[in-house]
């Protein structure tokens, strides 16, 4: 190595950085372009080719050390200890069981406050499926003290944003406001959660809005595929139902259903008030004590409800053949880990190893994930994405892909090969790279007060505490190739799969083909 360095130095009379920079490089380029490099004339055609390649390499070979001092293509575990300190997350549990959690950055002039609730569509019944989402819509439609118009004007006049979302296990209402409006925002949140009036006329008007939203969602094929995937993987269990609910339910949900859902599920012990940005913990706690007084204190926890009606994974598939659609899409999933399962971290790393790819991604054929490489080089997919969803008692781990109909078999092979390979052959470099990518993406995501408040709220509901960044990093760093193999053996090796596919999918291999490829036949 040292000798080669000496040689390369000798070749150059002067270190290149002493020359005006651009002229140096263009001179090299033109020299390489014009010179028929080898001294002995080439005889074979391969020599010509080799010379051309060498010339090309030489053009790239501009060993200016200044640009190659720090970066390395080989993933290393870097020392993050100096930056893992964050402002403290303070948590106070009130006497009624309500938790208040904050992270303050008092220098900022904005804040996010919100209510995270351990309730979602999985706590509904067959008849009431859709209530949680309907409620999310109705909660902005006026309370005993505020009409819709007053509510909207109040928020808009202070330049705030009020938003809500419902998932299978969580419901969230949050407000994004300027620092001095935090008490007002909390007041509004408390009012809409405790005193919503649910005017009948409004409910009827909202049905049409939700039915229209349903049409929109049905246009988004990715959402549809994941709804079908849940429906087949968790069939006959509450997790299999959709969030929006069937149209028939949307047309029949009544005020009673909504009130009932609030009183059984919006209970103090299942709620977290989370705030970040320009907020003081003590102030928020005091306000919450004053404002959230009407909440039910029913001690039933979401985990007890889940234990009563657990989600059961069933290896199965759903195929919706529609040859009119230009592209086929499908998702293959295994039964994954629950939120608190220590192996859920390893599954996150594995998701990052499989990666995601689409036609316009900058990395193209050079992505680290072998699955992405296969998709890009063989041009067998339009896009591909590994996913890992966690729930209270189970999860889904797999790959979602979109492809032209004639590539489906190759793509299915590539996906299953790369998934099942994780039980057999895993390289340390791949794991390390995935760990680094995971750590970065988790931290880089916390960009602004809303993602932080969201992170606090979600973690308190799922883990019962906020995991410090240092601990999360330690847990991720502890995943190595052998861990990945063990976890793959637990979740993937010879396990049932659930498949949802839609579009021109007649060439997608059958269920047994997929099931067979969860392990390799090698002894």
């Amino acid at each position: 190595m040292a000798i080669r360095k000496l040689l390369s130095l000798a070749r150059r009379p002067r270190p290149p950085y002493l020359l005006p920079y651009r002229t140096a490089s263009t001179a090299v380029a033109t020299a390489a372009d014009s010179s028929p490099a080898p001294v002995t004339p080439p005889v074979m055609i391969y020599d010509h080719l080799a010379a051309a390649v060498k010339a090309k390499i030489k053009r790239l070979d501009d060993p200016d050390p200044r640009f190659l001092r720090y970066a390395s293509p080989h993933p290393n575990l870097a020392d993050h200890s100096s930056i893992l300190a964050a402002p403290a997350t303070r948590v106070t549990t009130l006497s009624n069981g309500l938790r208040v959690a904050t992270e303050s950055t008092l220098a900022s002039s904005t804040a996010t406050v919100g209510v995270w609730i351990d309730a979602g569509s999985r706590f509904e019944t067959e008849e009431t499926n859709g209530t949680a989402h309907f409620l999310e819509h109705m909660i902005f439609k006026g309370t005993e003290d505020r009409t819709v118009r007053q509510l909207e004007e109040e928020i808009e006049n202070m330049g705030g944003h009020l938003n809500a979302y419902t998932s299978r296990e969580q419901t969230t209402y949050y407000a994004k406001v300027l620092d001095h409006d935090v008490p007002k925002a909390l007041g509004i949140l408390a009012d809409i959660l405790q005193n919503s009036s649910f005017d009948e006329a409004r409910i009827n008007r909202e049905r049409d809005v939700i039915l229209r939203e349903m049409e929109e969602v049905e246009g988004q094929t990715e959402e549809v595929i994941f709804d079908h995937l849940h429906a087949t993987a968790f069939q006959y269990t509450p997790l299999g139902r959709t969030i929006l609910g069937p149209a028939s339910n949307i047309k029949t949900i009544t005020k009673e259903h909504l009130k009932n859902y609030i009183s059984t599920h919006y209970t103090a012990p299942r709620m977290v008030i989370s705030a970040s940005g320009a907020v003081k913990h003590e102030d928020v706690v005091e306000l919450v004590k004053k404002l959230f007084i009407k909440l039910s204190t029913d001690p039933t926890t979401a985990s007890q409800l889940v234990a009563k009606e657990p989600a059961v994974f069933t290896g199965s598939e759903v195929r919706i053949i529609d040859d009119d659609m230009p592209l086929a899409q499908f998702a293959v999933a295994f039964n994954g880990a629950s939120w608190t399962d220590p192996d859920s971290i390893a599954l996150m790393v594995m998701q990052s190893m499989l990666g995601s790819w689409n036609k316009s991604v900058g990395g193209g054929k050079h992505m680290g994930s072998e699955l992405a490489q296969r998709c890009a080089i063989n041009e067998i997919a339009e896009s591909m994405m590994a996913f890992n969803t966690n729930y209270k008692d189970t999860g889904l781990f797999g790959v979602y892909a979109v492809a032209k109909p004639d590539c489906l078999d190759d793509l299915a092979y590539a996906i299953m090969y790369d998934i099942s390979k994780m039980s057999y052959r895993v390289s340390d470099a791949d794991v390390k790279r995935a760990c680094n990518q995971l750590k970065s993406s988790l931290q880089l995501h916390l960009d602004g007060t809303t993602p932080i408040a969201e992170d606090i709220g979600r973690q308190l509901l799922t883990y019962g505490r906020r995991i410090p960044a240092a601990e999360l990093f330690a847990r991720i760093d502890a995943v190595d190739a052998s861990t990945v193999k063990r976890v793959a053996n637990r979740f993937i090796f010879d396990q049932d799969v659930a498949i949802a596919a839609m579009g021109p999918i007649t060439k997608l291999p059958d269920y047994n083909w997929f099931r067979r490829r969860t392990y390799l036949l090698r002894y």
Partner: protein
Amino acid sequence: MLRSSSRSLLRKLAKTWIYDLRARNISYEPLSWSQGSYATRMPPLFHHLPGLRLPPPLSDQMERFPTKITTLPNGFRIASEDSLGPSACVGLYVDSGSIYEKDESVGVTHLLEKMAFKSTRKRSHLQIVQEIEAAGGNVNASASRELMAYSYDTLKAYLPQAIELLLDSVINPAFLENEVQEQLIKVKGAIGEMSKDPQQFLIESLHHAAYSNALQNPLVAPEEALNRIDGSIIKKFYHENYTADRMVLAAFGVDHEQLLAIAKPILYDLPKGFPVEVPKSTYVGGDIRHKVDSEKTHVALAFEVPGGWHQERDATVLTLLQMLMGGGGSFSAGGPGKGMHSRLYLRVLNKYQEVQSFSAFSSVFNDTGLFGIHLTTGSDFVAKAVNVAASELLAVASPGQLTEVEVNRAKNATKSAVLTNLESRAIVTEDIGRQIVTYGCRKPVEHFLDILDELTPDDITLMAQKLLASPPTMACLGDVDRVPSYDSISNQFRTPY
């Protein structure tokens, strides 16, 4: 008895000692060397990790750091603002863009965006991708008419790598012919999809119609340009425009000295380049229509913003005016706060069911800009909708039409939008870069907020009158025959208020 208890004590001691050791190592070494498998060492996530020593929490009073700027002898500017979080963003901004394109180089900016982070003379594309993935960073490149932006978002531990890679890929691009061809094919493939994004298509057409030079250049390379462009044309344009005095390295979350220590040795000998005159754009106004068979028709109606970013106060009034008019889609996600009480929402969207979207937009440049209304409706209703748009613009220009309440609402919305945007690293970095390219310095956000606070409804009305004094520009897509003629629209704006 005594012995057994002392043994257990010893065991306990030994345990804590081991954990301590582990804790000391935990930040830079995986736990794998220690005893037990992953499963036994890692408790469920609701338990703390035993033995992990956490860093002391930061204070809640994290102050904001000032922006420091260093100018190198060759004119290259390096600016940074430190912060305490775990991540940082580095960006390189070049005072170049489609306005500098001439004749054969038209469309090159679009290709330059696509060629970002490809092979350089030091690194192959493969190596660049690998290096980014090894650190788990995010890179991004975007081209606009007056600015090229390259950015790298990363954890602080990888800052030196990030800065080096970012600089290398902007300063040493190789523009390998095969990579250029690959991108050309991709861009050609995307031309057909352009019409699927009517809004972008209209904005392109609008600029084409509004200006007679410089800003008239397309930002999305047209087909004939793609057949002409090759590596050498890109290289020529690159060498003319990517010179030291037109580049700014901006960073957020980076210590200025650290940034200088890494960037200075790389940048000090970049050639300065010849002084380039900024191409002047002349606003002419006009009309452009694309007939497409569709149930929907999209129309954009715009006027010139005199002065652009350089007229700071006017630019602020314009931002306020846009927020005041607001608007949006008739069906859109999001709760209160998305502008449901802005003028266009209250006066247009709530009134006419046929209108699918109706919103104020602006596109501001250094010395000029466009402001107007963008609307989408069923084709039957388009004639009426365009007239409504014209009368809404006239309404804000008529004295006494604006109430104090709605102006205050718009002010708060603007304030909140600006401040929440500045929560994001990437946006702060871009703000630093953009301001230094445009103004040569960074003005604190308070400066903008102060200007905003002082504005009155009359300021807005005056601004609107200034806008409407210019000839209108129209761009339409869809059933364009039903759109009122250009003359009939421009006649409406000739009446004095």
